[in-house]
């Protein structure tokens, strides 16, 4: 189960600053831990998060080991035009989750 939740206002005034909160379901296994028998648990993390607003990148984050599981990323953008925001998380073991949220700008 790979789930991601995006919370943002569905409509905004032109020029308004909107807050976006994203929560992705991911164990963020660091690659430094070992099992009880001493075997290394392979790294399994989200490497990159991007947000594009009508095709234009407005936010990007590189994630590293030791970032907590189920990372919460919160940021703001300026509502400039109606359209859709696309959120994409990519990581190890070909992990890819894409969420699309529409926004109406008046």
């Amino acid at each position, binding site marked *: 189960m790979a789930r991601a939740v995006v*919370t943002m206002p569905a409509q905004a005034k032109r020029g308004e600053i909107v807050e976006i909160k994203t*929560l992705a379901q991911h164990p*963020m296994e660091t690659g430094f831990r070992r099992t009880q028998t001493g075997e290394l648990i392979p790294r399994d993390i989200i490497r990159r998060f991007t947000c594009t607003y009508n095709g234009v990148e407005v936010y990007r984050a590189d994630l590293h080991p030791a970032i907590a599981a189920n990372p919460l990323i919160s940021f703001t953008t300026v509502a400039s035009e109606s359209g859709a925001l696309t959120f994409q998380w990519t990581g190890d073991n070909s992990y890819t989750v894409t969420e699309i949220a529409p926004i109406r700008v008046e």
Partner: protein
Amino acid sequence: MSRETRAIQDDDTTNPGMLWVLDGEALWNRKAGTADRACAACHGDARTSMKGVAARYPAFDAALGRPVNLEQRINFCRTGRQKAPPLAFESRELLALTAYVARQSRDLPINIAIDARNKPFLDAGSEAFHRRQGQLNLACSQCHDDNWGKRLAGSLIPQAHPTGYPLYRLEWQGLGSLERRLRNCLIGIRAEPHAYGAPEFVDLELYLMWRANGMKVETPAVRP
């Protein structure tokens, strides 16, 4: 619990436990077992049918003649009604379903009714809470009744009111049940932990929930 942890818990958009609740909602509506029925086929909309249920558990099961906790009740439904194999304790699916059911009781007061049938089990739980055990020879009550509010290796000792289980523990980086927490405590006092679903645990859970009567359910809570 710090102000920051409470802020994470109280906002559904930042509470990581909600990821399990959403998974639980999907499982609630998914058909399972040879009976090919979903939870929703009998119980309908959990938002109404499961409201307040978690606040009454562990509850007495007449067929079994002893109290059962919410996880066990879900598994009885799976084996009895859905004719499906029971879910393993602490499995992602069981935690998700339990969290989804318990979420429907959020902000309702815990209401454990004690009658002649479950009184002996409450007494057994109370006895276990006050009994010294383990190599450290400590009783639960010595920390959680006598010394709550003080610090144990930098962590605040709480009063042991299980209001938010299953809860997201930052130390676990995931959701876990009350029994997982009790096992942590037992290992901490160098006692032999009981197996998941053991009657000793359910008795203790019953006592702890009764002790928290009137407090509001916080599932899915977030704790350090």
